[in-house]
């Protein structure tokens, strides 16, 4: 699936021509949207859903200001991701509870989606939340489906209601409701046979069960690996039964899971839970935001963007802070930071970690970042050997000349950088005292500021 790995790169490429950071213009956005479209289609998002989505995002992107901490490519990715997350909806791992117990939940879906196992998992999950469930063996068609549910019930030590395969599922459901009432169980979960959405007879059967026991919650179970047909299936089940939500199964595999978006888009109903494995505790609340980045196939890029926006990774921050305190901070760290900065601009966070450098001051400093100088500095540091970067003290006359040549700069530039770096490090050393200095308005001069 090299396509996905390449999406971030290709988006960056699509924006190469865009100089500086201005507004996103139509042709750039169109080019980027072509890549987004491909990625979504390869992720199995339904064709029609992709088309509408891309059009919508395109409209939103054109003319949009590029955030300072982002490249134009990242800006588009961010818009795409935000829209996708919004479309996926908020987290809703809740089951509608009946005002008067028992709560009746019915699971429906195609053959092989994972309904029976999910009945067990859901019961297990809700039992942990204090419910007393009864499992109902309503699949009278598939060989050994009743037995399967009975085995699950035994494994979980949860009662199972079954009437064999000679009674109608409607009667079974009714019987189960009565049984739950008499036993004081407050949650009834009905397993139903897998069926095709185009099988009228079997769809009628579900409607009849619905009419007979009035489920508080009808959940459509959908295999996360489903392709383009997910919209047809979800739309049919929803139209016939008015589902309340969706459970996505088999998400523990390597599918991009575009069906999630298709199903959400076509039914408007929330995806509530995700099946993450075969074990009976492998049912988790569904995370719409994670799903969005999974579908896009750019989890890494997205998390970078997030970091740029929120705060730098905690562990990394701590490491850096420690380095700053001990003045163990060398040109290698310096370069690291710069490269990161180029990607996502966490300078703000780095500066933000320095005591006394908050709010307005920070903004001022940020506005002063000189991009060109940064490029110079990077070139200079890159022309140094590892040894030199780790021990800047050893960079004397001849080395400075070599470095200047290698980086296409002047010896003066190298001198300047080293001096600035030394000052910076010195300042970091006196970390504690810095706060006062800053308050007095003493300039903190990092080399990549104007």
């Amino acid at each position: 699936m090299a396509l996905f790995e390449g999406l971030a790169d290709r988006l960056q490429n699509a924006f190469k021509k865009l100089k500086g950071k201005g507004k996103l213009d139509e042709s750039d956005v169109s080019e980027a949207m072509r890549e987004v479209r491909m990625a979504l289609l390869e992720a199995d998002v339904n064709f029609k859903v992709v088309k509408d989505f891309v059009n919508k995002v395109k409209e939103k992107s054109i003319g949009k200001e590029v955030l300072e901490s982002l490249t134009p490519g990242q800006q588009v990715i961010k818009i795409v991701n935000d829209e996708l997350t919004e479309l996926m909806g908020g987290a809703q791992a809740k089951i509608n509870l009946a005002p008067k117990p028992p709560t009746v939940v019915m699971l429906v879906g195609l053959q092989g989606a994972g309904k029976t196992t999910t009945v067990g998992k859901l019961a297990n999950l809700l039992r942990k939340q204090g419910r007393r469930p009864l499992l109902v063996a309503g699949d009278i068609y598939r060989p050994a489906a009743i037995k399967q549910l009975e085995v699950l019930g035994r494994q979980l030590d949860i009662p199972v209601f079954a009437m064999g395969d000679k009674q109608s599922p409607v009667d079974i459901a009714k019987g189960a409701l009565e049984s739950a009432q008499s036993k004081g169980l407050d949650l009834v979960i009905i397993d139903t046979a897998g069926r095709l959405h185009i099988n009228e007879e079997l769809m009628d059967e579900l409607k009849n069960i619905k009419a007979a026991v009035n489920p508080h919650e009808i959940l459509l179970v959908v295999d996360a690996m489903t392709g383009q047909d997910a919209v047809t299936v979800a739309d049919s089940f929803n139209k016939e039964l008015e589902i309340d939500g969706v459970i996505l199964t088999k998400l523990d595999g390597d599918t991009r899971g575009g069906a999630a978006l298709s199903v959400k888009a076509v039914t408007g109903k929330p995806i509530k839970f995700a099946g993450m494995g075969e074990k009976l505790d492998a049912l988790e609340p569904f995370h719409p935001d994670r799903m969005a980045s999974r579908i896009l196939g750019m989890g890494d890029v997205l998390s970078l963007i997030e970091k740029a926006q929120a705060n730098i990774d905690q562990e990394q921050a701590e490491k850096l802070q420690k380095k700053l305190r001990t003045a163990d901070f060398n040109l290698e760290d310096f370069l690291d930071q710069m490269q990161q900065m180029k990607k996502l601009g966490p300078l703000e966070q780095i500066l933000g970690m320095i005591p006394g450098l908050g709010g307005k001051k920070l903004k001022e400093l940020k506005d002063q970042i000189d991009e060109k100088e940064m490029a110079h500095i990077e070139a200079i540091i890159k022309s140094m050997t590892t040894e030199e970067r780790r021990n800047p003290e050893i960079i004397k006359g001849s080395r400075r000349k070599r470095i200047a040549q290698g980086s296409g700069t002047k010896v003066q530039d190298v001198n300047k950088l080293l001096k600035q770096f030394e000052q910076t490090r010195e300042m970091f050393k006196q970390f504690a005292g810095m706060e006062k200095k800053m308050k007095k308005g003493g300039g903190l001069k990092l080399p990549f500021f104007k």
Partner: protein
Amino acid sequence: MGFFSKLKEGLTKTSQNFVEKIETLVTGRKHIDEELYEELEEILIQADVGVNTSMELVEAVRKKVRERKVEDPAELKDILQEEISAILDEGKSPLNLIEGLTVIVVVGVNGVGKTTTIGKLANWLKEEGRKVLLAAGDTFRAAAIDQLEIWSNRAGVEVIKHNEGADPAAVAYDAVQAAKARKVDCLIVDTAGRLHTKTNLMEELKKVKRVIERELPGAPHEVLLVLDATTGQNAVSQAKLFGEAAGVTGIALTKLDGTAKGGVVISIKRELNVPVKFIGVGEGMDDLREFDSRDFAQALFG
């Protein structure tokens, strides 16, 4: 929710079946234009052919149209079908049935229809006059053994089983011994559904295969990967990883009685050269067909 309602409206339009769609596509037009190619690509993508393969197929059609100086839009359909069956091989890929004992291992992810397909296949082979034995190699899923037993009764064949939780390789070992002793023609080994990304479970599968190889040199003669036609592009990953672990020799494409088209098998054939051998068109014993690339291509496009 303007987006949802707009989308719904669009979907009602697209939920016409493919026959209708392709008909409107080609009959409503006087000449072949860019829009027509785009619509062709859309139809392929919506049949789960995948965006890359769809684009390449349309490109191939475009080339043929140029070469043959085709002007009638109605001919596009035929050209496209030609291209698709060329990828999928002309005609049928028969099961590799040898003189003596043929061993068939059936693999796939959870719920695709392995056990059901085995039931149908057992019936089909038996009706061809072969002596069939089944091995209940899914010792993991609750009641999977019972399910296979019910199918064996329906088909009137015997089954070798251990208890739930037993080592599937041990079941395979016993089954091969029994097949040899009972002079069976075809042994079909069921396996537990597993996601192709779970390395430990794929190792388990390799072990089953190794045991069969060791007990009967040259076996298994077929490793059938069961694919659910509803599955999207992930089927390529399934075919690849099951292929690496178990040496898949053919595909059984199930649930074609729904509205899904299973177009992803075109990409699988192209990329991994694994042919489709059977299709499943229902839950009954007789709902198994030999795969025919022409029919398949036609079903995609009416």
